[in-house]
C-alpha cells in the first residue's frame, strides 16, 4: 500500500501532507502527555514490529502483492495517537533508507497507514468491545477493528490513486500521474485487501496481541515494562522469517516501475518520466553484492535497530528537556 513517488501530483501530495500536520502535532502532544519517557523505547519496539510486518509480502489476486501494517495492533496496545507516531516513523525509515514509498508521497502514505488505519481500527475495536463485554467480544473486536482498519486505509489509497487521471491530464488527455481512474483503482486495491491482505492483518494482530497479553502483559498500559525479553524474541523470530516475504513475486498494485507501467498502460505518464528520482541507500531492501535473502535480513536488522535508536533518543531527549524545564 506504499504509494511511490510520481503517482500522485505534487498538489495531492501537498494536500495530504498538510492534512497530516495537525494529526502529527496532536499525536505528539498526546503521546508526550500520556506516555512517560521511560515507556518511549517501547514505542520503538512497536514501530519495529510494524516495520517487520510490512516486510512480509503476501500474494494477492490479480498478480500483485500486499502486506499487513500492524497499525491497529499498536493502537490496541498503546492507543491510536502512539500508533500514528510509531507507524509514521516506520514509514519514514522505509521511505528514506529503503525507497519503499515515495518521499513526496510520504504525507499520503502516513495519512492512509498511520492515521486512517489505526484510528478506524481502534474506534471499531473500542465500539465492539464495549458492546460485547466478554472474551469472545474482545476477540471479535480485534478481528473487526484490524480488518476494517486495513480495508478503509486501502480504500483511501485507491481514491488517492483514482482521482489523479480525473484532475491531472495533459493536453492530449493522457494522465500525468497515475493512469488508472476510480473505476479501476478502487476494485483493484480494495478487493484484494478485503479478500487476502485483511485476513492476514487480522491474523497477525490477533496472534501478536494474544502473545503480548500472555508473556508480557505489563507492556499494555502506562507503566514501563521491565521484562521485554519475550517481545525481543518475537522481533528476532520475525527478522529470521522475513525472507518468506520474498516468496511472493509480483509488484504491489500501484508500485510499478516506469517500464512496468508503460507495459501495462501503454504509455509512461509524463509526471513519472520527468518526476522525482530518489535513490535510496538500500533500494527494495536489497544489498548489492549479497543474495536477496541475506540482503532482506540485513535490511530488517538495520531497520529495527534504527527505529529502536530513534525512539530511545526521543525518550531521552524529553528527559533532558524536562529536567531543563524544571
Amino acid at each position, binding site marked *: 500500500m506504499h504509494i511511490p513517488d510520481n503517482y500522485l501530483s505534487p498538489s495531492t501530495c501537498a494536500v495530504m501532507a498538510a492534512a497530516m500536520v495537525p494529526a502529527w502535532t496532536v499525536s505528539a502532544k498526546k503521546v508526550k502527555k500520556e506516555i512517560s519517557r521511560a515507556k518511549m523505547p517501547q514505542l520503538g519496539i512497536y514501530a519495529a514490529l510494524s516495520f517487520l510486518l510490512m516486510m512480509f509480502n503476501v500474494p494477492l489476486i490479480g498478480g500483485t502483492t500486499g502486506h499487513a501494517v500492524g497499525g491497529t495492533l499498536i493502537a490496541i496496545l498503546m492507543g491510536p495517537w502512539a500508533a500514528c507516531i510509531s507507524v509514521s516513523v516506520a514509514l519514514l525509515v522505509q521511505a528514506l533508507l529503503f525507497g519503499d514509498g515515495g518521499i513526496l508521497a510520504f504525507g499520503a502514505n502516513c495519512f492512509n497507514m498511520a492515521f486512517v488505519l489505526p484510528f478506524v481500527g481502534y474506534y471499531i475495536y473500542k465500539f465492539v468491545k464495549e458492546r460485547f463485554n466478554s472474551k469472545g467480544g474482545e476477540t471479535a473486536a480485534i478481528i473487526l477493528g484490524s480488518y476494517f482498519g486495513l480495508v478503509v486505509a486501502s480504500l483511501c489509497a485507491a481514491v488517492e490513486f483514482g482521482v489523479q487521471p480525473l484532475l491531472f491530464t495533459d493536453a492530449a488527455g493522457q494522465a500525468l500521474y497515475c493512469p488508472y481512474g476510480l473505476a479501476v483503482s478502487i476494485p483493484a486495491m480494495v478487493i484484494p485487501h478485503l479478500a487476502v491482505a485483511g485476513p492476514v492483518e487480522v491474523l497477525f494482530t490477533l496472534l501478536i496481541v494474544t502473545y503480548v497479553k500472555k508473556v508480557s502483559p505489563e507492556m499494555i498500559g502506562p507503566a514501563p515494562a521491565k521484562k521485554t525479553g519475550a517481545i525481543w524474541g518475537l522481533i528476532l523470530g520475525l527478522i529470521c522469517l522475513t525472507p518468506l516475504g520474498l516468496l511472493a513475486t509480483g509488484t504491489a498494485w500501484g508500485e510499478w516501475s516506469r517500464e512496468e507501467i508503460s507495459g501495462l498502460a501503454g504509455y509512461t505518464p509524463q509526471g513519472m518520466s520527468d518526476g522525482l528520482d530518489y535513490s535510496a541507500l538500500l533500494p527494495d531492501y536489497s544489498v548489492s553484492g549479497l543474495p536477496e535473502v541475506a540482503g532482506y535480513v540485513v535490511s530488517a*536488522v*538495520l531497520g*529495527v535497530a534504527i527505529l529502536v*535508536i530513534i525512539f*530511545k533518543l526521543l525518550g*531521552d531527549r524529553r528527559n533532558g528537556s524536562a529536567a531543563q524545564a524544571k
Partner: protein
Amino acid sequence: MTDVPQWLAQPENYSPPTDSDRFIDKSILSFIGLISKIKQQSGRSRDLLWVSPGFKLLFTLLYVVLMSSSRHFTFVYLMLAYIVAVLAMLPAGDIRKSLKGAVIAAVFTYVILLPAALHGSRYSVTMIPAKVFACVLSVNILSCSTRWDHIISSLKRFFFPDLFIFVFDITIKYIVMLGEFALQMLYALKLRSVGKNRSKYGSIGGVGGMLFIKSRDMSEEMYYAMECRGFTGEYRAVGKFHFTVYDGAYILLNAGFVWLFVYFQNLV
C-alpha cells in the same frame, strides 16, 4: 571603640578596568568535563553487552582494521548494520554520546572529501565517511559499554607487561587528582583576577608549572608509600578471567566477520 585607621576612612574610587577572563573559565570547564568523564566510570558497576572486556577490546580493534582495509562496499555495509544493531542495545544516553562523536567525525570527513567528489571520484566520498562513521561508532560503543579500568586490567590477558598496566592505572587515577588540584588553582586565579591582567599566558603558565611540581611531589610520595608497604620493584597485575558462553558466541561471530572479509576481498 577602637579608632579606625586613617587609610581606611579615606574614600576610595577604584573602578577596575574590565577584562575578559574567559580563558580561565574555559580552562575550568574543560578540567571539570575531563574529571567528570573519568569519575562517571566508577558510577557504573556492571559492564554492558555481556562479553568480557578483553574480547570487546580485541575485536573492536579488529573491526577497525577490517573495515579500513576492506575495498568492497558490501562488507562495510554489513559491519555498519551490525554495529548499529549493537548500538541499539545500549541505553539512550550512551547512544547519544556515541552517535555524536561518530556523526561529527563522518561529517568532517565528508566535507574534507567534497573536492574529490567534484573531481568525479564518487567512490571515496561514499566509502570513507561510512568507514569513519562505523569505526568511531564501534570505539565509542566500547568506551560506553565497558569500564575503562576493566579494559585496562583485561590487557593482562594479552600479555602486556605488568608495568604498562600499572602506568595506565596510575595515569587515570592521577589525572583526576591533579585535575582537582589544577581546578583549585584556577579558582584561586579567578578570585584574584581584578582589573586588567597583562600576562594571561604567564598566569596559565604559572598554573602549569605548579602542576608539574605538584605531580613530582605526588609521585615521590606515592613511591615512598609503596616502599613502606613492601614494594620491591615488581608490580604484578591480577586479572579475573572467566570465559562465558557469550564470549564463545562472540568469538564465533567475529570469525564469521573475518571469513566475510576474506571472501569479499577475493571478489574485488
